[in-house]
């Protein structure tokens, strides 16, 4: 789906002599770089937050285990902690681990979606007639 603003932009680019291929390439590279950016943000956020989140989960489980009176709506963290506490006694060295495979799969999936998601607009782009730009809004 092309929103109206983009459709106008495509018409203008065609009217001033840009080819279908060129416009499609431009739009696809735009969406691919957005995908990369999104993946990067996701990875960084994941890497930075994984450890604190684990800590919160683990420490709340420890405290809740040791001082049940302080749970006070400890939420998911608290409850999970209880489960872990029941199953295991030492959980101090618990780490969040993300393997490279998972990152690669995620990236590949995102790229496939971005490319398929661009093929459809590409087809729509080729259908925009440059003479449309002479019609008023």
């Amino acid at each position, binding site marked *: 789906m092309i929103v109206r603003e983009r459709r106008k*932009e495509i018409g*203008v*680019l065609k*009217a*001033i*002599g*840009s080819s279908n291929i060129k416009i499609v390439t431009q739009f696809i590279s735009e969406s691919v770089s957005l995908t990369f950016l999104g993946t990067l943000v996701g990875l960084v956020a994941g890497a930075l937050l994984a450890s604190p989140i684990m800590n919160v989960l683990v420490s709340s489980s420890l405290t809740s285990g040791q001082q049940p009176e302080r749970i006070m709506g400890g939420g998911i963290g608290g409850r999970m902690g209880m489960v872990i506490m029941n199953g295991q006694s030492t959980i101090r060295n618990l780490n969040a681990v993300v393997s490279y495979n998972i990152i690669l799969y995620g990236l590949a999936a995102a790229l496939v979606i971005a490319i398929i998601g661009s093929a459809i607009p590409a087809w729509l782009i080729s259908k925009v*007639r*440059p003479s449309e730009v002479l019609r*008023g809004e």
Partner: protein
Amino acid sequence: MLKVENLKKQFKSGDTIINAVDGVSLEIEEGSFVSIIGKSGSGKSTLLALLGALDKATSGKIEIGGKEITKMPDRKLISYRREEIGFVFQNYNLIPNISALENVMIPMELTGMPKAKRKERARDLLLEVDLDENKHLRKPSRLSGGEQQRVAIARALANKPKLILADEPTGNLDTETGKMIDDLLKKLAKIEKTTIIAVTHDQDVAKRSDIVFHIKDGKLVKE
């Protein structure tokens, strides 16, 4: 230089056929400023679209600088639009998310001009259309209508086209600003030796042009 023979464009809508351009013939010398006047729906935009190869004629012939564009394959038409035609629209039609300078650079990017060179020419062109240098990096939404139209004119001139086609370039502007834009177009046509064909509603503008055509029901009458 520009020669049109018995040009026709029909649109089919349902059972009815509209003769939007109905047997237009004309000859225009290089460097002239031509006005086209006509009521809404008379075929002005359709005629410009044919001259600028935005649309294909149903029949007839358009010849520019000895080249017959009505016979060109699509691929050639793209480079024809890119290199020999400059368009100026009523609603400016600048690309919204890039600066004025970058808008003027686009046509030159399409011809593969090196970045430094096209940046320099874009700057020169913007100065030539009297856009203050401190506004060159603004996005179109932060420019007034008249300023946006100046940018559009600079963009139209970027690749030194033989022909500039302007569809009511002053239609969205107040009288005074509109007059300035018209004068600018005319001045530039002389400097750059470009032919300009402008659709207008303004009798005054028409009076000051080299040739005036009236169009009615797709037919052209020279004044």
